[in-house]
């Protein structure tokens, strides 16, 4: 986020100067003084040269962007209106792919529903979980560094290994999760084998790795000025009042950032279902058929790239709309200490 705005500022700076220069030159042209005209030309070419050097410096990124991001992006948009199958054909079929998606493909709706279910539960839960753990780990007790390391560890482990680990933990007969539940007299569900428990199982698994978000919150919690708490103490505020009226408002920018990025991430849920469902087909009764998994199957199992690309663009639009809503409503509850609410 910060990087983004910095980049924007930089771009604006260049633009501002660009218009200034051309404005000057227009004014000077009116005066029709050849000497100054020469000067302007010089200045112009200097700016041009500077710009060129600037672009030169950012060229690795530009090349990467145009060839590896924008190019394929545009290509997939074109493909989404065709029946492209990687090798041999690419006939334009107009809006057929989109029509099929909304009218003829039940699995599209199943996958969308599964994904929204996952987003709606996992995003708030992981956000709240990360804040909770961060607040706990922000207290000053002995050996805190060890606790912080332990809670952060799951975020270090790589995906697929973690999924295999959880498949064992969630095993209905011999898994640790159900064993622990049985100590409390709870007869644990079949988790990944029961369609009504597969998604909750994944959400619980996600909660286990809140360490990444936790680190962000921890950093921002340390940035909350001590003086605010001291002032609150003088006013006789209790712990909860301090948390809800000082801590929480002060870390809202990070919460905001976390919610936006994890919503986007949650919509893209794929690997979990792919690895943890038998044969990668989306689990019992399609209960783990997430949007991206359905898209993947269309792209790389059936090789219907046109349809898969169309699905990708619909997902892009969904995420875009949600992010715009987030940005709009974010202004109401996000508090920036800088004061200008930018």
């Amino acid at each position: 986020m910060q990087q983004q705005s910095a980049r924007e500022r930089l771009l604006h700076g260049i633009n501002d100067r660009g218009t200034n220069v051309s404005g000057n030159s227009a004014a000077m042209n009116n005066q029709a003084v050849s000497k100054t005209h020469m000067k302007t030309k010089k200045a112009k070419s200097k700016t041009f040269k500077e710009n060129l050097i600037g672009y030169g410096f950012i060229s690795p990124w530009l090349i990467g962007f145009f060839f590896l991001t924008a190019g394929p992006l545009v290509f997939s948009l074109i493909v989404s209106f065709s029946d492209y199958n990687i090798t041999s054909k690419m006939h334009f079929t107009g809006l057929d792919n989109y029509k099929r998606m909304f009218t003829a493909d039940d699995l599209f709706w199943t996958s969308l529903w599964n994904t929204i279910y996952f987003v709606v539960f996992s995003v708030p839960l992981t956000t709240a979980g990360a804040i909770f753990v961060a607040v706990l780990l922000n207290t000053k007790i002995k050996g805190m560094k060890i606790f912080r390391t332990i809670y952060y560890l799951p975020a270090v482990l790589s995906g697929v290994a973690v999924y295999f680990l959880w498949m064992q933990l969630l095993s209905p007969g011999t898994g640790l999760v159900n064993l622990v539940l049985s100590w409390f007299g709870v007869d644990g569900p079949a988790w990944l084998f029961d369609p009504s428990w597969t998604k909750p199982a994944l959400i619980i698994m996600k909660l286990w790795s809140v360490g990444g978000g936790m680190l962000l919150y921890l950093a921002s919690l340390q940035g909350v000025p001590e003086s605010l708490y001291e002032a609150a103490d003088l006013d006789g505020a209790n712990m909860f009042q301090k948390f809800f009226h000082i801590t929480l408002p002060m870390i809202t920018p990070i919460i905001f950032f976390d919610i936006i990025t994890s919503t986007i991430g949650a919509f893209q849920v794929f690997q979990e279902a792919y690895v943890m469902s038998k044969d990668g087909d989306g689990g019992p009764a399609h209960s783990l058929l997430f949007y991206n998994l359905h898209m993947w199957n269309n792209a790389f199992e059936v090789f219907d790239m046109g349809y898969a690309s169309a699905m990708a663009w619909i997902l892009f639009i969904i995420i875009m709309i949600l992010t715009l809503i987030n940005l709009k409503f974010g202004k109401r509850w996000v508090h920036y200490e800088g004061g200008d609410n930018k």
Partner: protein
Amino acid sequence: MKRKLSIFLSVLMLFSMLLAGCSGDKASGAGGDSKKVTLKFWTFWGSETRRPIIEKMVDDYNKSQDKVVVKHTFVPWGDIWTKNLAAVAAGNPADVVVTDINDVSHRAKNNQSTDLSKYFDDNFKNRFYPQLWDTVLYKGKAYGAPFNTDTRLLYYNKKAFKEAGLDPNKPPQTWAELEEYAKKLDVKKGSTYERIGFYPLWGGYGAPGWMRNADNGKGFIEGDKLAIDTPAKEDALTWLADWKKRYGKKTIESWDADFANGQTNPFVAEKVAMYVDTGTFYTQIRDSGKNLDFGVAPIPSYTDHTRHWSDGGGFVLEVPKGSKHPKEAADFIKYLTDVKAQKYWAVKNYDNVANKQAAESAAAEMSGMAKDVYQTSNENLKDTQLAPVPLNYPDYKSRIDPQIDAVMLGKKKSPEALKKAEEDVKKIKK
């Protein structure tokens, strides 16, 4: 799951291949001797056991003539499908590639493989099991040749049979007998099972297999006709759900999870007394180090009057579209599917091969249980059917599977579920 996973990882490879394809490989076709043609041969046989075997076969071919040099490249399982397509798209494919038997017609239709019919004479097809040859045809033309195959058999634990008072030389012949035997073979302590007699969905034969077995060998989609919601298939699905009911949802789910990792096999561990799997499952029993006393038989039939239908799959040799030497490639394919090479593969790998004569002479060379199992699978191949992915309904499984799941979970009755499955499949017709 492994295959899927590697496909996933290989997509990156696919795109890098597309890029690499641009650089071109001008050396192809001119390697080594300037007169010799170099054939690029891709397989996924890279394991310690399989790689030496296929490379010996390639080596023999290279020595047997002086016009062609075959260069074998191992492409990991899962990568090979996407890599092949990427290479075809980039215009720089292999000359011969080993690929799945069930979607030959799709690649033919999509112009991704070469019509080889002009290189094969009329006799060529006679060397193969007919159901295998059928899969390589698209509009009556051959777009490849079958290489190896498999078939599902019933393995049963003879020791357990004796304990249960059953004749170890009389495996169950019908579904009714299968049920009767299974009940006798169950060992239950309190509420938990120590041994399960039989559970139809463990092993290599899924619900679609049993439904096809019941329906006189008729698959879900025959040609252009749907045969999903049929009385026999409804009955078979109900029968499957009843097995689950009998053992209990909890038992099945927890056993499913325990054997899901594939590290231990329930039949080899003697936890399950009867088990359906491929003929090559024998090697797993052999290599387990246990002296398992077992027998092997065809899959029980639906009734006395129906046949012991079984399922199979396999791999074919194809020439990708864009190969510069299709004729030489076809010659190499002829060699690989001829008796000598096929027999070598069959014996060394303990694998079912597509060449009938080679399969029979391979069995004659074996002994003991290896021979028993191999011979049974050879006979079984006569009643073995494949399930090529239909051209009009490439994604049909994704519409049928959840309905089968729903019945197995007790959420739907089988007639209702299959009716819905048939409707859903109808909708996705291309």
